[in-house]
């Protein structure tokens, strides 16, 4: 029944979806206050733009105005948001961690799902369902005219972010004698969490005192990152969306940064404008998710059915979202993986 509904939606939506992607429609926060029954999300910066696009395309397929529509609130700007009619005003969650916290601190009257660019962690409630959306990867970026080399090893990155190495000459004697300036996104960032775990070989490293935390992730426009000695972790998908598909706008652009190799593997397939298959096979590859409360995700009521029909296996996103995902740099998942649920 659910599958049939999804298939019908798929057929109806395909043409609209493709047209919207190639028209480059700009989408951001909901234009108006969503209705109480609508499905609203908050959280990750990395997936905010593609969720906005998916929501816009999904909503075109919803012909009944009183049926639940899909909306997604961006990670920034900071401040208080009222996510939908009747919701409790909340501080706008900035990042995966903040989104998940907001999900668990509220009910579906305020937040239905959290965007997450990190996998579940042992500290997450076991009642949170991480529903797979797409594949991304995290590399590092530095100013194109800067002192950073084209490639750093995992050990180099670990040494830099633990401040064991602080000068480029310690990486390679031929590099400029200058102090490295490592940056990290703010503490609630899923990209930050994933990157620190990846460079630690599976165990998160504690950043050293030489590291500056707090930049908004995936925004190369930050003036601090224009420093010739700067480097920062960067979502490969977000970078591809910004550089190759014109998805950046305002501060959400790559600026002077270019994305670099890790362990000799280039993150971007510049010909096909996608995450390189070689990089996608490294530990720097990750799945991005939308997170739901298990009781709601598995419920047989209209709300639960709607959630699964949009985000679940064979649901609208898995059946129709590939073009949107690719145009924002992400790799669509197989039909087996897309919509699968992972617990902490």
């Amino acid at each position: 029944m659910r599958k049939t509904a999804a298939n019908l939606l798929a057929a109806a939506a395909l043409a609209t979806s493709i047209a919207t992607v190639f028209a480059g429609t700009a989408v951001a926060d909901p234009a108006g206050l969503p209705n109480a029954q609508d499905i609203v999300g908050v959280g990750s910066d990395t997936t905010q733009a593609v969720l906005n696009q998916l929501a816009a395309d999904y909503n075109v397929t919803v012909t009944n105005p009183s049926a639940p529509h899909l909306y997604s609130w961006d990670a920034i700007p900071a401040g208080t948001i009222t996510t939908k009619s009747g919701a409790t005003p909340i501080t706008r969650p900035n990042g995966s961690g903040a989104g998940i916290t907001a999900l668990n601190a509220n009910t579906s009257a305020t937040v239905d799902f959290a965007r997450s660019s990190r996998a579940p962690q042992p500290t997450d409630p076991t009642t949170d369902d991480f529903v797979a959306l797409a594949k991304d990867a995290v590399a590092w970026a530095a100013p194109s005219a800067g002192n950073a080399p084209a490639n750093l090893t995992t050990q180099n990155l670990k040494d830099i972010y633990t401040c064991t190495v602080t000068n480029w000459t310690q990486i390679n004697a031929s590099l400029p004698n200058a102090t490295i300036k490592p940056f990290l996104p703010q503490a609630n960032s899923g990209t930050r969490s994933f990157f620190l775990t990846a460079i630690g070989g599976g165990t998160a490293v504690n950043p050293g005192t030489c590291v500056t935390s707090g930049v908004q992730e995936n925004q190369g426009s930050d003036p601090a990152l224009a420093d010739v000695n700067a480097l920062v972790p960067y979502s490969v998908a977000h970078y591809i969306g910004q550089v190759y598909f014109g998805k950046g706008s305002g501060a959400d652009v790559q600026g002077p940064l270019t994305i670099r190799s890790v362990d000799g593997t280039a993150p971007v397939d510049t010909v096909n404008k996608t995450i390189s298959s070689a990089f996608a096979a490294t530990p720097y590859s990750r799945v991005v998710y939308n997170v739901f409360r298990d009781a709601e995700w598995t419920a047989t009521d209209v709300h639960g059915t709607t959630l699964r029909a949009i985000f679940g296996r064979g649901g609208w996103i898995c059946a129709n979202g590939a073009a949107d995902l690719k145009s924002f740099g992400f790799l669509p998942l197989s039909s087996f993986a897309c919509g699968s649920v992972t617990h902490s």
Partner: protein
Amino acid sequence: MSRMRARLASSGAAVVLAVTAASGAAVADTTTTPAAGQAVITTDVAFLSNAARNGIVVIPLQPANPAFDPNAGLTVTLPVSGGAANIPAFYGDVQFGGGLLFLNLATGKSVTLKQFDFSVANGYFTAVPNGSTTPVPLLDPAGDNVINRTGLTQSLNSSSFQVDAEGANYLDAKLGTTYFTAGQQIGSLALSYTPAH
């Protein structure tokens, strides 16, 4: 009547399976900590009954471990034999020991499938037929998939386990039947996997 015959056929198959299981020998490898875990395939009674009506019997081959419950159906446990996979990240492969013998009692035709491999990225199980080196996509986890990681151990529970389209064509061709179909529901899957460490 046909339901009774099906039950009898299922029970007969269960006896064969039980004998097969009882003769199994434990294998120990204490030199390292190898990959561990299992894939437990729980077949629906309806699938078993229909298969029996069509003269088809499925016999697990050691070290696969069968069990039968009249309510739950036939359970086949395939032990993990190796692989390198990260199931929550959807990449890699998990390999399994044992095999399955598909036997058509009406025609006497059979096919033995071994070297079961779960391709996590593709989301299907392949197996290699006897006398061949080419894996055949055989079974697909479907329905709702729930993935967990506890320490090193990863798990996948699929509410539905189905015959792959290629697998259906292959089995029908080898057994001389038209019984198998793409997406045919055979039961459910519970997989656990701990990588070598």
